[in-house]
């Protein structure tokens, strides 16, 4: 048996996604900018994907840009709006629990005279609303908040945050990194007052190398890539038709019978939390009594006295796949910023594992993973490090 519980890192593509991608790779492989019919055929895939996405976000098709993934969407959103709006001010607000693809562009922007404020979070990972109110000034051009945190599954009150921003400064733009949220929530950016929204394809059973940036009409953004002026000059480069087609198909599937899918995820999450009670010295990070106020697919668990890397490899021997902290940063053995920000005890920082589910995860997989944990943990605790 195998249990892939690392779906916040990436997911397996849906069969229908694979099929449509192969078709665009082998049959309809034209360049969408070509004037002949093969080009037009390829362009159709982009149009259809755009329609599906626009419908699910309830936005206009022209407000959608296809990117190479979440990192590019975040970079484009932050750097693009900062440069396009720098005459209005130089202040940007974000939180202490963002992904590096938000942090690092902001650090880059500091070199160009932008000032960054980081909002604190409580032990559930929710941002300090009062602090947000106090920090917004006339100079604040952008607020960037992550919808669902990738390490602990904390969910922000996006609508409330949006209202506060617009009350304080109606010109301040609001960017939401929805990379872990999209596919899990119905997100209607225009109703929520979101100006820019980042989405990644491979977190929702689409292909790697696919992403979306929603840019609300009239929002000024400068491109960060220059070339053949595809996608109205905002994102030069031949459109990645297989990725775009696959992404559209993934969006279609994930939002089909959506409520049922999400209920399934919450059931799994509750079940997993219940079963964790069997193991001693376990802490579930950022857990709320109301499970629905956290993301349906992410659970962060600290196992006292065990190094996460060792546990991860021991689970791997039993074909159980998980992440230590955040997958994206776990190639560098640095401690997680999010876990520190929500006040996880120092001795547990290096003992934290992230389990993450997908719509295809089964109860059997969780049973299997828990029995593996029950086997491994007592053994590992026997040999504690000094």
């Amino acid at each position, binding site marked *: 048996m195998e249990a892939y519980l690392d779906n916040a890192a990436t997911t397996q593509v849906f069969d229908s996604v694979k099929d449509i991608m192969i078709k665009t790779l082998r049959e309809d492989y034209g360049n969408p900018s070509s004037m002949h019919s093969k080009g037009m055929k390829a362009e159709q895939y982009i149009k259809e994907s755009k329609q599906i996405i626009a419908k699910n976000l309830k936005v206009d098709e022209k407000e959608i840009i296809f990117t190479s993934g979440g990192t590019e969407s975040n970079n484009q959103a932050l750097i693009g709006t900062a440069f396009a709006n720098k005459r209005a001010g130089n202040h940007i607000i974000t939180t202490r629990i963002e992904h590096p693809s938000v942090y690092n562009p902001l650090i880059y922007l500091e070199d160009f005279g932008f000032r960054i404020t980081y909002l604190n979070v409580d032990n559930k990972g929710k941002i300090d609303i009062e602090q947000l109110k106090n920090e917004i000034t006339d100079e604040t051009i952008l607020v960037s908040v992550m919808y669902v945190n990738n390490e602990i599954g904390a969910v922000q009150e996006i609508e409330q945050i949006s209202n506060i921003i617009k009350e304080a400064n109606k010109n301040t733009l609001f960017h939401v990194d929805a990379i872990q949220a999209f596919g899990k929530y119905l997100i209607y950016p225009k109703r929520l007052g979101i100006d820019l929204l980042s989405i990644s394809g491979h977190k929702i059973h689409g292909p790697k190398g696919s992403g979306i940036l929603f840019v609300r009409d009239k929002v000024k953004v400068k491109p960060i890539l220059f070339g053949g002026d595809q996608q109205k000059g905002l994102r030069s480069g031949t459109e990645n038709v297989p990725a775009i087609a696959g992404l559209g198909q993934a969006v279609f599937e994930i939002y089909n019978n959506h409520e049922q899918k999400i209920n399934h995820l919450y059931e799994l999450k509750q079940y997993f939390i219940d079963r964790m009670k069997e193991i001693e010295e376990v802490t579930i990070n950022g857990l709320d009594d109301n499970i629905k106020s956290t993301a349906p697919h992410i659970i962060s668990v600290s196992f006292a006295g065990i190094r996460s*890397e*060792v*546990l*991860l*490899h*021991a*689970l*791997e*021997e039993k074909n159980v796949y998980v992440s230590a902290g955040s997958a994206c940063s776990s190639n*560098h*053995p640095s401690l997680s910023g999010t876990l520190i920000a929500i006040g996880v005890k120092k001795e547990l920082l290096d003992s934290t594992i992230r389990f993450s589910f997908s719509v295809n995860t089964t109860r059997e997989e969780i049973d299997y993973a828990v029995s593996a944990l029950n086997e491994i943990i007592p053994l590992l605790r026997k*040999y504690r*490090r*000094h």
Partner: protein
Amino acid sequence: MFKAFLIKYAEIGIKGKNRYIFENALRDQIKYALKEVGNFNVIKEQGRIFVECPESYDYDETVDAIKRVFGVASICPVVQIDDCEWDPLAKAVGDYVEQMYKDKSFTFKVEAKRADKRYPFTSPEICMKMGEYLLDRFPNMKVDVHNPEVKINVEIRTKGYVYSLIIPGPGGMPVGTNGKAMLLLSGGIDSPVAGYMVAKRGVSLEATYFHAPPYTSERAKQKVVDLARIVSRYSGPIKLHVINFTDIQLYIYEKCPHDELTIIMRRYMMKIAEQIANDNGALALVTGESIGQVASQTLQSLNATNSVCTMPVFRPVIGFDKQDIVDVAEKIDTYETSILPFEDCCTIFVAKHPVTKPSLKAIERSERNLEEQIEELVKVALDTKETILVD
């Protein structure tokens, strides 16, 4: 412009009656090194090795590949001259200078050799006549027989050859001419360098790596395979033995004082490596130890570790400072891989204050606690070892 390389070797030249063994080995190692680069003929001829390039080839890649072959003293890109009658020979040498040197205001000297003693001119005569010819053709060139900027070498064998570039090789001896040794390869900086240095003396390598899942990851193991692959570009194919060391390590952890853990562990590593060496016909062990670098490499610790082996243990970097080792690692291209951050099995349970002056008696006393199971665990480790051929 070069259709051949002349390979010079130094040390092999003095090997008396065994010389042909070394020459053949060198020829074979050059062939092996060029296998992936393209189609070449590697020919041994009258105390010289020639690499002929019948097809188009990438000059830089070819030179880099030959530069990794131990035993090569220098590499000379040569132009072959089929017709050695004087006029065509002189013209060809002139054309060579024409093409090689844009700016012809340099001092030069012609050096000539004739292996073909029937050639109508002696070597000094060739030098003089060729010098004259070149001075006529390129009036900006000047002769300087003592300190020339360019030496133009002309050799008359069955064909004629001209060359003036001499690219230094690595020196050493061709791998395979001095037996085989077992390298204890970790993921660190030192052991690949140690392997490289021993290989340079003509020794072929096998390697042993101690893997400790789940405490060390698959990536840590892959890193060691990658390191072995880089070393094998110099040493030729390496048989890499991977030993699962977890149970032995945990058993030592359970039964022995924790400050002696590393020493005892290393003693078992040496024992196991020696066993694999014996089984595979290797005649020595090679480690990357350097005196005083870490607690397990003090003289006392080295003494305690060494005493489990009867086989010679070579520690080619023993007197190197860390930076010296890093310099070699950078030169042979293992450094970038070595510093990838994966835990290796020596650091998992490392005590805060490990013993730095272990007494052999105390260590042996502690090891008595292992008597019950250790032999069986070592046997299992040896029986379940995985062998990967890296080339």
